């Protein structure tokens, strides 16, 4: 396959970025999108040009490190992480636009790499339990309804890649924040700090400068873990009930 790439190049956070066109020849349809970028970078290095910076780590779709906007869609045409997207998803001779996640709280560090530490600070604002729980308990020692366990697990699959923010027309991180909240809200361990957590994490979400949710649904449509849009509604419900708790808990 021969591919034409138009990639966002931006030397650093302060510099103006622009789209630069590159040709990549002899791409195998079985390559992942990142492997194709590796090929381009080897080529650029040989030519003495600056390789394209992009984030990646596990390359098996579980770490949440990679992620670029491909032809206007976060993680590209199939609902998965960029590392698990294969070149067979494109036709020979395709022209592919590659851009970084764009949102004010995700400033570009270089080229396609953005700073997502805003997510870490949202987690620090309540996305944990503070009770010491000791070692892993015996299975079924704490009975949890199947329905609740499933929902907690579905929400917990969020890998924090940031595709929801990249796709949201409002630049909102509500899908990420609510996935973390719902994950703990469905389990007994999450109950003592349930309402403090909601208030704390939403306040941090606001402080980071993320936008608000208008229930458009673009986030859930690109989520590689298919976190459903309804976790946001469940978070809102928890937030509303937290307003009626006198001690804030």
């Amino acid at each position, binding site marked *: 396959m021969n591919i034409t790439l138009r990639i966002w190049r931006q030397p650093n956070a302060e510099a103006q970025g622009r789209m630069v066109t590159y040709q990549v020849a002899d791409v195998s349809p079985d390559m992942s999108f990142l492997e194709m970028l590796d090929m381009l970078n080897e080529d650029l290095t040989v030519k003495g040009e600056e390789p394209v910076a992009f984030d990646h780590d596990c390359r098996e779709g579980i770490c949440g490190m990679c992620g670029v*906007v491909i032809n206007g869609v976060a993680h590209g045409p199939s609902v998965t992480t960029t590392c698990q997207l294969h070149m067979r998803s494109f036709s020979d001779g395709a022209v592919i636009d590659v851009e970084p996640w764009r949102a004010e709280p995700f400033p570009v560090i270089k080229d396609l790499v953005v700073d997502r530490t805003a997510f870490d600070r949202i987690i620090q604002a309540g996305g944990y339990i503070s009770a010491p729980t000791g070692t892993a308990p015996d299975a079924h020692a704490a009975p949890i309804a199947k329905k609740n366990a499933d929902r907690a697990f579905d929400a917990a699959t969020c890998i924090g890649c940031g595709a929801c923010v990249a796709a949201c027309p*409002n630049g909102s991180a509500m899908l990420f924040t609510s996935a973390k909240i719902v994950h703990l809200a469905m389990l007994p361990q999450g109950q003592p700090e349930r309402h403090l957590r909601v208030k704390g994490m939403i306040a941090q979400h606001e402080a980071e400068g993320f936008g608000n949710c208008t229930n458009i649904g673009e986030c859930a449509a690109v989520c590689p873990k298919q976190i459903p849009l309804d976790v946001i509604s469940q978070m809102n419900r928890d937030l509303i009930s937290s307003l009626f708790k006198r001690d804030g808990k």
Partner: protein
Amino acid sequence: MAVTGLILVGFLLMHMYGNLKMFMGEEAFNHYAEWLKGDILYPLVPSGWFIWIFRVFLLAAVVLHMWSAIYLWHRSAKARGSKYQHVTRKVQTYSARTMRWGGIILALFIIFHILQFTTKTVPLGYDLEQTQHSPYLMFLGAFSSPLVWVIYAVCMIAVCMHVRHGFWSAFTTLGANLSKKAERVLNGLAYFVAILLYVGFMLPPTFVFLHLAPFGG
């Protein structure tokens, strides 16, 4: 945003129901119009006060609705930051995308609507003198005009699209969307309310415009 929006949807449903009284004839409609401005809740409030209390309440809802919309619009525009070179929309509906600009169009339409029928500053399509004591005749006159009918037929599409996304979105914001099934039900309800409003609001004007019974025939 959600609470004020639902208040306004509630008002629209009442307004639509009231307009359907046109089919009951001149006396019934005029009596209804008079009752609205008359002694509702009397003697709890002095006669004629209710309409003003209600207007202040509605105006407050509209102002709060617009204030939160503008605040959130500003926040979102800031959060979005730099623009994508290549934009692809996956699931968003036209209604969802046009809530903000559509809302501005609605505000203008509501101002026009009040100037036309409430303050009667713009008596478009009807004669001020002849219809002075009969809102029924005013309605009849206005919607006999093709221009007025077209304006309302088009603007009501904007209203109903706004309600279509707004209704579902309001309930989601208030925490009612907890499963895929709830999402389907809320979206279905939103379509139902939007279509009901369009049909309900456009029935009397369309019957008037086409001179169908009981307005000519």
